[in-house]
Every structure is written in structure tokens, then in C-alpha cells.
């Protein structure tokens, strides 16, 4: 059932979902509350748009692992189901999750940047790479190009390092390479 | 330095179809170069079935892969030669080898499920292979595909030719794979564990099929497997591999009934039978050495109950022994006697 919801949600671009959540939050909440919790609304919006990727991957991995014999051995031994999930399943499923997590971290940063660029993310009072790029956009051709370019470069480098971290983490957790 | 190859002759005096001489397959690793196939020599005559038997890691599949030219890098042929019908094939460029593969050499692998493309009908896969290697128009190619299917024993070939692989059972799929391997009328077939994934009663059918093909078409077959029973039923001669080397080679009945090499003796003794005394099986203690830990001298010496001092120092080459050839110093007196 959950997977059907995920399937439906996957047919919408994540950005639209984030926009939708953001827009709804803005219209529903009174002004004063808005500025204070914008950050949290943003986090919620991004999280709710991207959970589907994790759900799919974890489900796929879990289903493969579940039929493996070491899980069945644990059941035959009589291990409590919760311990099977935590002790056996989770460590073996976490690998792909880590990789996706880091990619999504990068995407989340980008999404926040995009939303701020579009003006519906963080208000101009809060620091944000996206806001900086947006603001600098107007000055791009008039000589003050650096207002956009430096934040843009920082964003790119940030995403690159996060991805590399993800690869390294996945390898570090692989006992075969120890 | 390569030893002078001394491999047993084929069944008759016909010129060997496949000659493998001092083949060496290496894989470079971070910790040095490992030798996966070490100075392997044998030949196969047309119509002959040569069984290559050994346990996991012995190098038998890699030998087959080297012959077809399907070694995955970083594995590579590092020495020796492979000659097919008088022509060297181990040093050919990719394109030339690709043409030979399929046309002159057919291949059958273990898992029929993954050997066939699930997206295309078997008819299409057959016709494609036929037309790639033979100069036939579509109608003629389809006709040949049909006759191939009938030959491998697929009932109702006229309809089944348009079926997809998943519509066939395991045994039928393997027959289709054999038909594919035969499509361009190759002179040599390399079969790597062709019956291992199949039920026992189907195994028997496939074995009978392979033997009949060898007889009727004069196709040489190199049958790689760990199952001695299949070899005993199908092969004319057997090569026993251990740690990348051939330790004994000879006619199948000699190897099974009167082996000379201690490893072959141990192997035959540990095979369970369906008659005779029950109870403890004879076992060989220890395990086959990993490629990065091959002992000096004879690779089997640490596990050998008959090991001499010489065995631990000097590596024996194949030498004549009681109607087979064995790489064992215990057989040296026989060899010296033979040379006297």
C-alpha cells in the first residue's frame, strides 16, 4: 500500500512537490509563525519529496536480503523479529541507502538553492546559497559577476565533496574490503 | 622455461583439431601476479570428447574461457599457444576472434536461463546467429534453425521456434542453447558445466544428446565439469586439473578405475556411489591451495599421503604412468623404465 503511494508520488517532479508543500504552508500559517518556521517547513518539504527514493531502494534491498538464508537461519534459531531487522537486515541494506543519502543530500542542497532562487525558500534575511545566486543574477552582466559565480562554485564543490564522502562511507562499511 | 609438452594423443591418428600447448593464464593483482592456469597442454581430435575435471579454483573454466577468447580482463593469456585446425587463435585481434567464436567454436555455459536473451524469441536468436556466421537468406536460415531444434530434440519445433525462453523448461532451454552453439556448424564445442543446473533425469538426456552430436557431426567437445559421473558417461579422455595444472590425463576408464596420481586416487575414492559399502567416505584432508599460496614443488604435496622429499622441492611435469600420464614423482620409475 505504501509503495502505491510512493509510485504515485514518483510521477510528479520532486520540485513541484516541494513547491506545493511550501505554498500550502505559506497560505495556511499566519505571518509571524511563517518567518520563524520557514526553515522547518523547507526541511519538511524536501524530506517529503525525496523519501520515495529511499523507500524504493530499501524495499528492493530488503526483499532481496529477506530471502537469503542467513535471515532464515535467524528465524529458525528463534531470534525475535525486531532483532532480525535491526541486527541482520539493516546492516546489509544500509549500503545503497548511504549512497543514495549522499546523492540526495546534494540534491537537497540544490533544491533549497532552487527554491530560494525562485523566492519561495528561505526569506532574504536568512543566509542561503540559492538566495545569493538569485540576487547575483541581476548583476551577472553588469560587471559584478562574482556575486553569483562564487556561491555557485561553492555549491558545486560542496555537492562534489558530499558525493565523495558517500562513496568512502560505503566502502568503509564493507567488511570485504577491510 | 616451458617443458616439452607431452600430451596423450587423440583417439586415433587423425590430426588433432585443437592443440593447447603450455597455456598460461595470469591475473595481475595488487600483491603480485597470480597464475591461474599453469603450463597446461592437451589436444582434442575431431569427434572426441575430452573431459576436464577439477574442483573449484582448479582453473578448468578459465582454460575453456581462454580457448574461446572470453577471458575477462585483467585475466590474460601470458604464455603458450592455442591452435585450432592448424591456425593459432590465442593471439588474434578482437574482431578476428569474434568471427571464429560461433563459427568454429561453439560454447555452452552452465546456466541456460542467462545464456538466452529473454526479450527475443529463440527463433530470432537462432536465425541471428546463423546469419552472422553463414551466408544464408532469412528463409534458409529459419529452415536451418528448425532442423537444429529438431535435432536437439525439441518436440513441436515448428511452433516452439517462435516461443520465448521463459516458455521453456530448464532442460528444454539447455537444448536450445546447444542448438545455438551448433548453429554455425562449429568444429569444436566448449561446454562448461552444461548439466549441473539440471535435474538428474534431464542430465541423462543432455549427455546422450552431446554424445550423439559428437558422433554424427564429428564435433570435438571439451566438457568442463566437476561431476565425474557425467565425465564417465560422456568423455573418451579426461584431464584432471589441480591448482591450475593438469595432474593426470588419459583414457576415461583408466582414470576412473586405475588412477595413478594421488590426487586422482583421492578424488575417485571420495565420490559416493550408489552400491557397495555405506558409511565413512574416503576423504582428502585439507583444501586446494589458493592462487596466492601455491606451495613449492608439487602443489598437491602438502595433502599427499605418498609425498616424497623430492615432491616438496621439485615440480613434476606430466610423465607416462600406467596407461595414463601423471605429474607425479611416484611415477618416475615407470617413466625411467619406459625410457630405458
Amino acid at each position, binding site marked *: 500500500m505504501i509503495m502505491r503511494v510512493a509510485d504515485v508520488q514518483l510521477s510528479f517532479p520532486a520540485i513541484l512537490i516541494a513547491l506545493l508543500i511550501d505554498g500550502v504552508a505559506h497560505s495556511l500559517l499566519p505571518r509571524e509563525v511563517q518567518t520563524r518556521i520557514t526553515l522547518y517547513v523547507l526541511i519538511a518539504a524536501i524530506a517529503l519529496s525525496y523519501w520515495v527514493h529511499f523507500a524504493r531502494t530499501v524495499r528492493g534491498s530488503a526483499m532481496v536480503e529477506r530471502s537469503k*538464508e542467513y535471515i532464515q537461519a535467524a528465524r529458525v534459531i*528463534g*531470534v525475535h523479529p525486531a532483532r532480525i531487522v535491526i541486527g541482520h537486515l539493516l546492516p546489509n541494506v544500509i549500503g545503497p541507502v548511504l549512497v543514495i543519502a549522499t546523492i540526495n543530500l546534494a540534491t537537497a542542497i540544490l533544491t533549497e538553492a532552487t527554491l530560494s532562487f525562485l523566492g519561495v525558500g528561505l526569506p532574504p534575511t536568512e543566509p542561503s546559497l540559492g538566495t545569493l545566486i538569485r540576487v547575483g543574477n541581476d548583476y551577472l552582466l553588469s560587471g559584478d559577476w562574482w556575486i553569483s559565480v562564487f556561491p555557485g562554485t561553492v555549491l558545486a564543490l560542496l555537492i562534489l565533496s558530499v558525493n565523495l564522502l558517500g562513496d568512502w562511507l560505503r566502502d568503509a562499511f564493507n567488511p570485504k574490503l577491510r | 622455461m616451458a617443458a616439452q609438452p607431452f600430451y596423450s594423443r587423440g583417439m586415433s591418428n587423425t590430426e588433432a583439431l585443437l592443440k593447447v600447448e603450455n597455456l598460461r593464464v595470469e591475473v595481475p593483482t595488487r600483491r603480485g601476479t597470480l597464475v591461474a592456469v599453469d603450463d597446461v597442454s592437451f589436444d582434442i581430435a575431431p569427434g572426441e570428447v575430452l573431459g576436464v575435471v577439477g574442483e573449484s579454483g582448479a582453473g578448468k573454466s578459465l582454460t575453456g574461457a581462454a580457448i574461446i577468447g572470453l577471458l575477462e580482463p585483467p585475466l590474460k593469456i601470458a604464455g603458450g599457444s592455442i591452435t585450432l585446425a592448424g591456425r593459432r587463435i590465442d593471439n588474434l585481434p578482437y574482431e578476428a576472434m569474434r568471427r571464429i567464436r560461433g563459427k568454429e567454436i561453439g560454447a555452452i555455459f552452465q546456466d541456460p536461463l542467462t545464456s538466452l536473451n529473454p526479450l527475443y524469441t529463440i527463433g530470432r536468436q537462432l536465425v541471428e546467429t546463423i546469419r552472422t556466421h553463414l551466408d544464408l537468406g532469412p528463409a534458409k536460415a529459419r529452415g536451418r534453425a528448425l532442423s537444429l531444434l529438431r535435432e536437439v530434440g525439441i518436440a513441436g519445433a515448428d511452433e516452439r521456434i517462435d516461443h520465448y525462453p521463459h516458455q521453456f523448461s530448464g532442460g528444454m532451454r539447455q537444448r536450445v542453447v546447444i542448438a545455438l552453439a551448433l548453429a554455425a556448424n562449429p568444429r569444436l564445442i566448449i561446454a562448461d558445466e552444461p548439466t549441473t543446473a539440471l535435474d538428474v533425469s534431464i542430465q541423462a538426456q543432455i549427455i546422450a544428446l552431446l554424445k550423439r552430436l559428437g558422433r554424427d557431426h564429428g564435433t570435438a567437445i571439451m566438457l568442463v565439469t566437476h561431476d565425474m559421473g557425467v565425465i564417465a558417461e560422456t568423455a573418451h579422455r579426461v584431464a584432471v586439473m589441480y591448482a591450475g595444472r593438469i595432474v593426470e590425463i588419459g583414457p576415461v576408464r583408466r582414470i576412473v578405475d586405475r588412477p595413478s596420481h594421488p590426487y586422482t586416487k583421492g578424488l575417485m575414492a571420495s565420490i559416493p556411489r550408489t552400491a557397495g559399502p555405506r558409511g565413512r567416505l574416503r576423504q582428502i584432508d585439507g583444501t586446494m591451495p589458493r592462487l596466492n599460496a601455491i606451495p613449492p614443488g608439487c602443489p598437491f604435496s602438502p595433502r599427499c599421503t605418498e609425498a616424497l622429499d623430492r615432491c616438496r622441492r621439485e615440480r613434476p611435469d606430466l610423465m607416462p604412468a600406467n596407461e595414463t600420464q601423471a605429474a607425479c614423482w611416484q611415477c618416475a620409475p615407470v617413466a625411467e623404465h619406459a625410457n630405458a
Partner: protein
Amino acid sequence: MPERDVLLEVNDLERHFDVSAPALERLLQSKQRVAVKALDGVTFTISRGETFSLVGESGCGKTTVARCVVGLYRPTAGNIVFDGVDLGRLRRRKAMAPIRRRMQMIFQDPYASLNPRWRVRRIIAEPLVTHGLVADKAELRARVAELLEQVRLAPADGDKFPHEFSGGQRQRISIARALAANPEFLVCDEPTSALDVSVQAQILNLMRDLQRRLRLTYLFISHNLAVIYQVSDRVGVMYLGRLVEVATADQLFTAPRHPYTRLLLETIPRLDPPDDPLGGREPVAGEVPNPIDPPPGCAFHPRCPYANDRCRRERPSLLAAGGAPVACHAVQEGRLPTSVR
């Protein structure tokens, strides 16, 4: 000699799997629900101390029997009685716990049956921890070392990961894990099928020694008749979810009765095939039918050279004939020529 004390009783065991198309598809295409009868009424008993084997080709249901006995599947019908306790009545996990301690399983795939991320020590200790059988860490370590030595591995191997071991060694680790809680009954699902022949000999010898020493009872599943011959006291032959013949190992291999048993024994590749210049025996044609749509009457009749009308209509039941049950009309009617190998 096994004592005449029945440890396990399986009665009319049935297990069906639902292989219907997903609900939406069934709705749109008016398809029916389809079930595969992996087990269609299997009955046998195992005595304390004996090795009872189930043999058959793929799809015959022998692995399903193993899984039902050990509690991985719930039977669709029939019951399983272990040492007098009807396992079907034990609904709650806690109630099953003492039974689980006494009954363990060894799996076929040495590469998938050990958690690749756990050290061997932890893998073997799991039953001890789950059933609270050790008081402290020191006792745990000692017991794990003892178990490792029992399967002829070194205590130092406990610190390694599964991938550092060969297939045969991993099976030894599986055996050590299965023995940790001192079970009486081991279900062995093709324990040596994935191993090389010489390693198989080592493992089978080990299992034989352990059985003697620890007085274990084995339910041994295999498709390899030669292995079955070597290890079994009694053998059950299965075909398409049904038991077709049960006999002692000697009886089965010297005087097989059911036509399917005879077919199996005829077709296994032999190390000493009869000399035949034309290339060997003509094997019987046909393959195991699709379990979703089994033949009516006797499941084997399409491939059976002795099938008559009754075989096509009426399913034979497992009736004792000469002291050992066989499910075949031809045998019961005395139509079958005796064969002695």
C-alpha cells in the same frame, strides 16, 4: 541402532502457494486465483537417532517439507508433531522457543547462510544469546571455541568474517551454529550440494561423527542419490509434492519399486556405465510437469511405462507393500516386474 522412539511425525502435510496475478490484473482480466500445491499430503515419521532422507528432483517439494518442519512456513493443512507436541498448536513465538532450541537447520548455500557483516564468533553465538544459555562473556567465548573445535576449525577463526573462508569451511561454521544450543534434531537442506566432491566427503564424514557423538537425528534433503545412499537409514522419494516410496536405504537401492524411483536410479550418471558402443542407455523422455497443473490421478502417469486407466484417474495412496510404503497402482496390483540391481 535407532531406538524405536518416534521423534518427528508428519501427517498429511499440505502447503499451497498463491501464485495468482496481482489483484488489479485479476479484476481487469477476470482471472482466477491460482495456487501451487507444493506439498500435497505428505506423511512420514522419523525415529530418534536415525537419518531419514528425502530425495527428488527440483520442484518435488522436499525443501518445502524441510521448511514446514522447522517452522519457516505454516502448513496449509496437516500437522507436524515433534516429540509429542503438535507444532500447529503453538501460535505464539514464546511457545515455539523451547522447540526451536531442540530443532535446527543447515542450509544449502554456504555463501548466503551466514551474515556477511558479522564476525564468525557472533554468528555462532547467536543461538546461545537468543536462548539465554550462557551466563557471561567468558562462558560465551569458551563455548564458541568449543564449537569451532568440534567442527575442526580453530578458535581463532571466530574473529574472522565469512568471506575469508572457503565453501566447505563456511558449512562447518553453519554446522557449529546449528549445534550451539545442543539440539536433538537437525534438518539438513542439501548441505553439500554446493561443495566440491572432496570437500563433500569431509563434511559428510564430520556430520556422521557428530551424529554418533551427540546422538542427533537428521532429516536429510538432497537430490544426489549417491549421497543419500551413503548417509541414510531410511529414504523417502518425492515427486510433485507427494511421497511415492519410503524404504530403507538398502531396500531402495537394491530393489526399487516405484517406477519413478527406478527411473531415477537408471538415469544417474554412473562411474561405471555399461559398455555401449552406441553411446549409452536411452534415457526416458519427459520432464517433471508444471506443479500448477499436475496431471490427474497419479502424478507420474505421463512418464510411466506401466500406467493404465486407473493410474490416469485415481491417485494412488501410500500403502505398505512388503513392509515399506509405496504409492503405485501397478505395484499394488502386482503388475510391476520386480527389479533387483
